[in-house]
């Protein structure tokens, strides 16, 4: 006869097996249509490129090689693939600036909302939520109508007599930057607000009691307290910025590529799938690296305060 402990153990095992069964559909779907293909892509990055797209199943390091190096067309000398690296660098740079700009705009905004009377807060949050759930393409397109030469911004500035020639914003890095800040701003505001809503103003009060200046209160009390929100918002903005594809495609005019467009190019007219696969994995690696840095940072700062 089984002891009570054994029965409990068996029940526990069955419980866990049931839980695996129950989560199986979700896990299987995600494996088939999200995670599994990544492994196939990893394999493709080590194959030989086909003549007109696709790959030949022959092992080759050319894909990875050409992420970082290039052979000169004319004299066959080797050099660093500055073209790829400069696109990667542009993607990282624009994403960092986007993150900082959304933080600069989003932090005061979230704070503003969090300090409204309770019954109006919901309305402000709702106002941020609407653009958040609006189609990214539509918002990019909307931004295009503001910044193009005959758009609202230029027409307005001209009417005010500030400029006499339209500012060329479309098809520049500025256009991509404006687009990304605009599109990803809600992703910064919402998590910031979530942590500011819980902000205990008695601590702020205590700060002032100790004759801290407003700036000191902001720096020493508020910012450390809402740090989880800052970290979450920054991750949420940085990741999609780095992989941005639609925004540079619509606003960048086919000339200012970001990593996402460079990847697409390899699967389209570039006809170099192994390189495209290798670039994709590089992008993923950069994202994972950023995530790890953030998470470690967050954990450390959390421990410091705990």
């Amino acid at each position, binding site marked *: 006869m089984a002891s009570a402990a054994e029965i409990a153990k068996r029940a526990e095992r069955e419980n866990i097996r049931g839980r695996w069964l129950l*989560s199986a559909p979700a896990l299987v779907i*995600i494996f088939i249509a*999200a995670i*599994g293909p990544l492994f196939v892509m990893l394999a493709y990055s080590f194959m030989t490129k086909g003549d007109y797209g696709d790959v030949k199943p022959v092992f080759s390091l050319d894909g990875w090689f050409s992420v970082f190096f290039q052979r000169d067309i004319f004299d066959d000398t080797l050099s660093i693939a500055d073209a790829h690296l400069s696109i990667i660098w542009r993607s990282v740079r624009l994403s960092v600036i986007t993150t900082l700009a959304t933080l600069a705009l989003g932090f005061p905004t979230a704070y503003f909302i969090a300090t409204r009377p309770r019954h109006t807060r919901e309305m402000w949050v709702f106002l941020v939520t*609407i653009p958040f759930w609006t*189609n990214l393409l539509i*918002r990019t*397109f909307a931004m295009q*109508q503001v910044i193009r030469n005959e758009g609202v911004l230029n027409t307005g500035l001209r009417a005010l007599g500030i400029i006499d020639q339209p500012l060329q914003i479309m098809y520049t890095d500025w256009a991509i930057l404006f687009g990304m800040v605009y599109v990803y701003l809600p992703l910064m505001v919402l998590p910031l607000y979530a942590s500011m809503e819980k902000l205990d103003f008695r601590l702020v009060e205590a700060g002032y009691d100790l004759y801290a200046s407003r700036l000191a209160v902001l720096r020493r009390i508020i910012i450390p307290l809402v740090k989880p929100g800052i970290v979450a918002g920054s991750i949420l903005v940085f990741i999609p910025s780095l992989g941005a594809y639609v925004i540079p495609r619509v606003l960048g005019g086919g000339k200012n590529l970001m990593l*996402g467009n460079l990847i697409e190019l390899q699967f389209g007219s570039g006809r170099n799938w192994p390189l495209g696969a290798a670039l994709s994995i590089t992008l993923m690696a950069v994202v994972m690296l950023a995530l790890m840095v953030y998470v470690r940072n967050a954990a450390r700062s959390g421990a410091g305060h705990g």
Partner: protein
Amino acid sequence: MARWGTRRFDIRVQPGFGTIALFTFALLYLPIVTLVVYAFNGSDSLSSWGGFSLRWFADAARNGAVQDAALRSFIVAVLAAGIATVAATMAAIATTRTAPYRGLGFKYAFINQPLMVPEIVTAVALLIVFSRVKVWTGYSGLGYLVLAHTAFCIPFAYLPIRARLEGMDSSLERAAADLYATPWMAFRRVTLPLLRPGIIAGFMLAFVISLDDVVITEFVKSGGQDTLPTYMLGQIRRAVTPEINAIATAFLALSVLLVTVFFFINRRKA
């Protein structure tokens, strides 16, 4: 709270924050308003104003390609969000209200994976795999789009359902069990009704996410499978006509409607 008023200043105010906040709200809405205004522009071009008109909406509504794309978007979104919600509900039940067990963290990571990987990466990976599968099976229907959408909808459906479950008291279910209800009965009669707001929220999130997707659809679709966003992407790149504004405005109105409904459902719950 009353004590704060006795100070010379409101301790909650940071100078300049209000101005920046109002600027941010203006920034969030100026482009959308521009887009909507131009949708009602009677002129042929986006460069000039030709009086108020609904002609572009009429044009868009008559455009067969737009009708097809809109219908396709809807079908894919309903199927993907539906399947994702069922799968996510099961997964949520399996991963909440339990002592940690081996594999639990793995499940979290797995389910949230689509949120972590840049969309373009998933998109090209799917392109690679699905184009092979399409050749092998000879089937190139909507199933691929539904499957791809379902995968990235699951984490969005999962979040609110899990949140709801974690806030739920399990004593009612235990009471049901004490009254000799089968686990299935307890689930049907007790858990599911309590869970309903979370499930509805999850479905709606997934639905909106699927409806909005551009990148993955662009790479997975076969011939003649444009959804409304990929149709618009193709158009925007070329001649931008006010008709696109009209389509975008209609799309926008639908999103706002969904978000508003979602917002009020959530509020009632709270």
